[in-house]
């Protein structure tokens, strides 16, 4: 469980997150909102790239904000980025092993854990394949494999399906939905694809201009008048 209390982030005169208070229960949670709503800023706070002006984040009872950014991965934070970050010059195996060896999981189980993470994503290529030879959907799966390896506690997925065709998005959704049961990690999915969010997330929170405007069961939230107004701009 992650408890966010009064989280505020300011960039100069712009308030990116405005006293956000929210509790993420275990499972897969959606985080949606129009562009500039503060979703990636929230992820950046959890990753340690942005220091909030105010507020606290307690993840499974631990004060996450007091931890150095690179130590958060060892604790169990995993993250993907809007722009795909699989390392082209490394093999699929090395991409995932790179995360495992900084995760705090023992080296003894590395090979097994890495292959297990790759097979979990359903990536149907040899682990020795160089990432530069893979297609966009396959690279996204490599990123998901990196996010689930080495006992993660919190998996943050930032628009993992951006630019993917429907078929690959639906496979990716299938994989994302199974992350909590496979790893035990709380997963937060940011995406603009509502069908993906509906398919993967039991609960969803909505941000608009840095403010939390709705949260609750996904189906209810997506029918919420404020949410529809924020997305469609209806007066």
């Amino acid at each position, binding site marked *: 469980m992650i408890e966010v209390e009064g989280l505020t982030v300011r960039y100069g005169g712009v308030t990116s997150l405005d006293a956000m208070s929210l509790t993420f229960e275990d499972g897969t949670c959606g985080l949606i909102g129009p562009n500039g709503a503060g979703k990636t800023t929230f992820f950046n706070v959890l990753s340690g790239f942005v220091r909030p002006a105010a507020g606290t984040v307690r993840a499974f009872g631990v004060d996450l904000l007091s931890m150095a950014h690179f130590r958060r991965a060892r604790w169990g934070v*995993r993250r993907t*980025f809007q722009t795909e970050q699989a390392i082209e010059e490394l093999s699929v195996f090395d991409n995932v092993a790179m995360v495992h060896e*900084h995760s705090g999981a023992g080296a003894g189980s590395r090979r097994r854990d890495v292959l297990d993470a790759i097979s979990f994503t359903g990536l149907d290529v040899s682990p020795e394949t160089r990432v530069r030879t893979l297609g966009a959907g396959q690279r996204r799966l490599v990123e998901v494999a990196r996010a689930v390896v080495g006992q993660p506690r919190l998996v943050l997925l930032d628009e993992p399906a951006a630019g993917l065709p429907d078929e690959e998005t639906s496979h990716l959704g299938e994989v994302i939905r199974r992350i909590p049961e496979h790893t035990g990690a709380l997963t937060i999915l940011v995406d603009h694809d509502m069908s993906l969010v509906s398919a993967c997330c039991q609960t969803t929170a909505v941000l608009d201009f840095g403010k939390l405007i709705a949260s609750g069961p996904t189906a209810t939230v997506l029918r919420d008048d404020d949410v529809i107004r924020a997305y469609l701009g209806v007066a």
Partner: protein
Amino acid sequence: MGRPQLIRWAVIAALLLFTLFGLPQLFSLYYIDSLTQVAVYSMVTLALGVLVGRVGLISLGQVAVLAIGAWVAARLLFATTQPYPLVLLEAGLVTMVAGTAIGLPALRLRGLYLALITLMLAGAITVVLATVNFPNGGHGFTGYNGALINIPPIRRPSVAGADPAYFRYSVLIAALMFLLVLAHIRTRPGRAWAAIRQSEPAALAAGINTWLYKLWAFALASFITGVAGGVLAGAVHYLYSIDFPTQDSIILLAVVLMGGAYSLWGAVVAALLYQFLPALLNNWGVSADWLTILFGLGVLQVLTTAPAGLADQVPKDLARLGRLLLRLRRPPAPRVPSQGGTA
């Protein structure tokens, strides 16, 4: 190990054996001396390749780091009777500490600013070395005696006194340094460096202590360059600060980019461009100064058409040429008359 990897290692072993035993038979002493310099500078370009190609750190101070290694080795060789390999190790370690200290304040910087800082620091080191002078058999900390008339040469290892033997010795040390880098890039630090080069935020999110791994790269590059300085000391016998001009670091970066900063072969190509090409031109009576223009054009060409350098481009071009020649030799396939009617 798979079959292609076995073939690759066999080719490398054959090339190394040919370099060690074939080249000294084929070339005159003039070229053997030049090839010894190639071996020395292949370590320097290898180290710069680690920084630029693997981690994305641009350093314009490598010639000064090389000078530190050469200075330490020369001092130890004059002052002690330690075996040569031990002196090389010590020169590498002292240079590693010095190079890392240079890298330390620069770690918060990237790109142009890092390049500028390293260039300025290199300039400062060159000034200090010009004042302190290289050891020439004198006493005291600096080991320099300006009044000395019969300056003794810097000694070489007893097994490699003659030029061809010292060439082999240099190649073996260089091969060891290449193996050291290979051991890094195939394992944990190599993966961490690849992640840092791709994206520092993504590397941090993956739990990589980017500060530590960048420092590690600086330490490794400085160690290798220090060892290269030690080998250089024995190769030339006499060292002068004028041999390490600051601007040579810029040329060094240019040849590393031309050779290919992303591959280990690129380091060899870069060293050949940097040391063998001038020797070749000198022998043909052409001024090596023309190379500054050639390297400028070369970098322009590489950056626009072959970012991975000659080490990547030449094999691809040769393969393309081979396919073209095969196609020309083979008669065109006879035309098969179409059967059946149209739909």
